[in-house]
């Protein structure tokens, strides 16, 4: 039975980690290739979830909602890139931070105006809203298994794109040395637009898939954005491999901390102290992880630039 619990928590951690990966892969590419700190990445995630919830509600099909969310968000991403980001590529990071923070305010208030202040309901498709037996003695949510599968599939696809296509080659070149890539004739402008649309689409997938597990509401993007930044810093900026490793680490460590720390503490100290300290340390664990990684490897686990 202890093995079952361990396996279930591992699945929970991996599922969360893979969704974080979808968010952070885009973020790390935008930062690594385009050298843009995009705080509005979380807003794109939110937009994906909102569009998915709206379309799923109207059509009754969850997957139609996901598809619509991805397409709409990628389109909005292209629009944002053309109107705002293109103007701040050459500027310092702080200007980018201010501009994209302003975008967060605009997106949040826009969502509140369009969809109202209350959280939207996005339900798990009925055929998946039941537990399935994965081991004789262990049942697990079918929907979470699907999310896990989609996450693995998209991660594999992304690696194929990065390592086997021309776009991927340009992206890798851009991440490791932007000036050199430009000098060698990489069509930077087109690559930037494509990378941004791709990162918007990936975050929309994460938003739509996490919608039924979390909640579709204004502000959902900011909390998870911080986690995505933690992931890419652990992994090394610009490295998709790094963000995969970082995301899985963060997902598993966070879940393990919440699942096992409080009971571990309860055996070590008084229940009163344990119930105070346990949740606090569980929340801090991923930041502790990041601090340790940066202390040992100041450039993250998989540094891209020489």
């Amino acid at each position, binding site marked *: 039975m202890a093995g079952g619990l361990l396996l279930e928590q591992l699945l929970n951690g991996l599922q969360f980690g893979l969704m974080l990966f979808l968010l952070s892969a885009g973020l790390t590419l935008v930062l690594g290739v385009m050298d843009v700190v995009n705080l509005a990445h979380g807003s794109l995630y939110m937009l994906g979830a909102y569009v998915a919830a709206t379309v799923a509600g109207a059509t009754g099909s969850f997957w139609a909602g996901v598809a619509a969310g991805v397409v709409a968000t990628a389109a909005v991403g292209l629009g944002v890139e053309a109107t705002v980001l293109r103007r701040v590529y050459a*500027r310092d990071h*702080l200007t980018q931070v*201010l*501009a994209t923070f*302003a975008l967060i305010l605009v997106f949040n208030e826009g969502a509140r105006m369009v969809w109202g202040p209350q959280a939207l309901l996005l339900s798990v498709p009925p055929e998946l809203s039941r537990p399935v037996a994965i081991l004789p003695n262990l049942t697990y949510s079918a929907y979470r298994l699907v999310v896990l599968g989609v996450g693995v599939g998209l991660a594999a696809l992304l690696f194929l794109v990065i390592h086997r296509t021309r776009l991927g080659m340009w992206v890798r070149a851009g991440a490791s040395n932007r000036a050199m890539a430009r000098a060698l004739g990489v069509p930077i402008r087109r690559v930037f637009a494509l990378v941004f649309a791709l990162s918007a689409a990936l975050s929309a997938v994460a938003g739509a898939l996490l919608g039924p597990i979390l909640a579709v509401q204004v502000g959902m993007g900011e909390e998870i954005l911080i986690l995505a930044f*933690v992931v890419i810093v652990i992994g090394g900026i610009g490295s998709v491999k790094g963000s995969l490793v970082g995301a899985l680490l963060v997902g598993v460590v966070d879940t393990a901390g919440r699942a096992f720390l409080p009971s571990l503490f309860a055996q070590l100290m008084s229940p009163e102290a344990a119930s105070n300290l346990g*949740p606090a340390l569980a929340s801090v664990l991923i*930041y502790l992880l*990041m601090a340790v990684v940066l*202390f040992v490897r100041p450039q993250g686990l998989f540094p891209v630039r020489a």
Partner: protein
Amino acid sequence: MRARNLSVEVGRRAAPAWPAGAPRALLWAAGVASLLAFPYAADTFGWDFYLSLATKAAVLALAASGLNLVLGYGGLVSFGHATYFGLGAYAVAVLSREGVQAAWVVWPAAVALCTLAALAVGAVSLRTRGLYFIMITLAFAQMVYYGVISFKRYGGQDGLRAPRTDLGFPLTDAGVYYLSLLLLAACLFLLWRVVHSPFGRALQAARDNELRAASVGFPVYPVQLYAFVLSGAITGLAGVLMAHHTQYVSPSMLSWPQSGHLMFMVILGGVGRFWGGVVGAVALVLLEEVFHSATVHWQLFVGLVLLAVALFATRGLSGLLEGRRW
């Protein structure tokens, strides 16, 4: 362009005292006088809400000016200054909860706590650069945040009351306003001296080119660490004042959105410009208030204004205010 700038500069210096210098001095005098007279006006006309708004702006101006020292002059983007702001405020509340009310104990203790915290965080974080520095300062801030909310005795998520400390006389709202202005002026004077000292030049040299600064013999790491600690202490002092202003501390003062808010004030006002923190804080407080009283969707308009500043005002608002002189 260059010639015109020069002529403006020369013209200003060469001009007789009355047309150029005196209005400026008069403007300053009028500004200071109206700031000093404001509480009386507020009392007479029932503007106590605006007195409170002005106090808030002054306190945030102090915090942002503290942050501007590392962010602007040091080029070190700290995404964890809410830690010092919040710790300063919490020190007031916690000491009062433990029965310590005397201002001459609480204030130095609060600032000392922030100094130590900044020393610890700075010593570790300054090993990293760029985005990694941003994130490691955030990491420490999050640890402090979750650490503080785990103390049920000190209110946890609910926050804690923070009665005003005992200065020997009762501190009114107007008193807090004057106190904030006084400390803001004192710290600005200190910051002015610091950034124009050899130390300040070394800090800016390290910002502009670290390798070069190190190779001409500037002790980059200690200089940056001193700046970080001083900045943390000033922001912590602002936190102390904030606790006196609101008489209540909440963990959201320690949270990352608060760090972001301070950062946006500095960027809005002008990074590395002496008045950047003050201008940014006052502008953001005013901006939020104007739109807030006009529409429920005020965040949209605040966002659009910030976007416009980011895209079109290269050096922040104080860059605009200074005109084309530099």
